[in-house]
């Protein structure tokens, strides 16, 4: 069961603050439940899958698109603030509460849906349930944030480790190149010395052969 709680200020009474909890199984389009409270009283109601289909048909709107609108209006809360309005009208004894939600457009608005909410006989229980739900969400988020924090610290230390290893590798590569060249020069110069020596001997041999020839 998914639940989301939002604070709403109805256009019908902008000073008032209400809390709207929407609950649904996997897909909002399969129907949803509503709990509305002003902190003292509480009302509840449901919207069935059939009613959702009928609303979409009445508005000649594609059903998926209509469910998307419902999500933005009823679930995203502050994120889609200003794009959707809520109207709440209560009868004298607060027994019934008419709740409607509409999409704001530039030149007016159109109603997305409405329903009659029944008064809850023990609003205190609803309030406790809402507060408990909030605390549970806070607890989960806190745990998740701590986990993410630790994960970030671990990732950061892994990253700096690899960064250091990369620096070492670059240094090692440069040292390797210099070292191999140094060794190569020493070995090559040995050969060059040998060549110089052989050339010297060969020149001497050629000169002596020339001398011998003259002498003869």
């Amino acid at each position, binding site marked *: 069961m998914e639940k989301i709680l939002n604070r709403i200020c109805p256009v019908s009474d902008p000073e008032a603050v209400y809390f709207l909890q929407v609950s649904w199984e996997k897909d909002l389009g399969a129907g949803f439940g509503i709990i509305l409270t002003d902190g003292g009283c509480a009302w509840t109601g449901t919207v069935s899958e059939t009613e959702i289909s009928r609303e979409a048909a009445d508005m000649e709107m594609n059903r998926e698109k209509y469910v998307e609108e419902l999500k933005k209006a009823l679930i995203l809360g502050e994120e889609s603030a200003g794009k959707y309005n809520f109207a709440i009208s209560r009868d004298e004894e607060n027994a019934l509460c008419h709740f409607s939600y509409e999409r704001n457009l530039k030149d007016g608005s159109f109603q997305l849906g409405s329903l009659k909410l029944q008064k809850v006989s023990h609003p205190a229980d609803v309030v406790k349930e809402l507060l408990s739900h909030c605390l549970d969400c806070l607890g989960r988020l806190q745990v998740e944030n701590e986990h993410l924090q630790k994960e970030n610290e671990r990732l950061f230390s892994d990253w700096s480790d690899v960064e250091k290893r990369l620096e070492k590798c670059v240094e090692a590569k440069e040292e390797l190149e210099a070292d191999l060249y140094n060794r190569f020069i020493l070995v090559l110069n040995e050969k060059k010395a*040998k060549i110089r020596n052989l050339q010297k001997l060969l020149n001497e041999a050629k000169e002596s052969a020339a001398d011998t020839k003259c002498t003869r």
Partner: protein
Amino acid sequence: SPDTKEHFAREYDCYGDSYTADTDVAQLKEVFSRVTDNK
């Protein structure tokens, strides 16, 4: 023996690398491993 010494001196440089026989990677690595930093 002096003869052997003289033979090796003629055939190999001070790092043990032959003056005349072609070398390959393995041999050259071995020669380099004997090269210390005696500039």
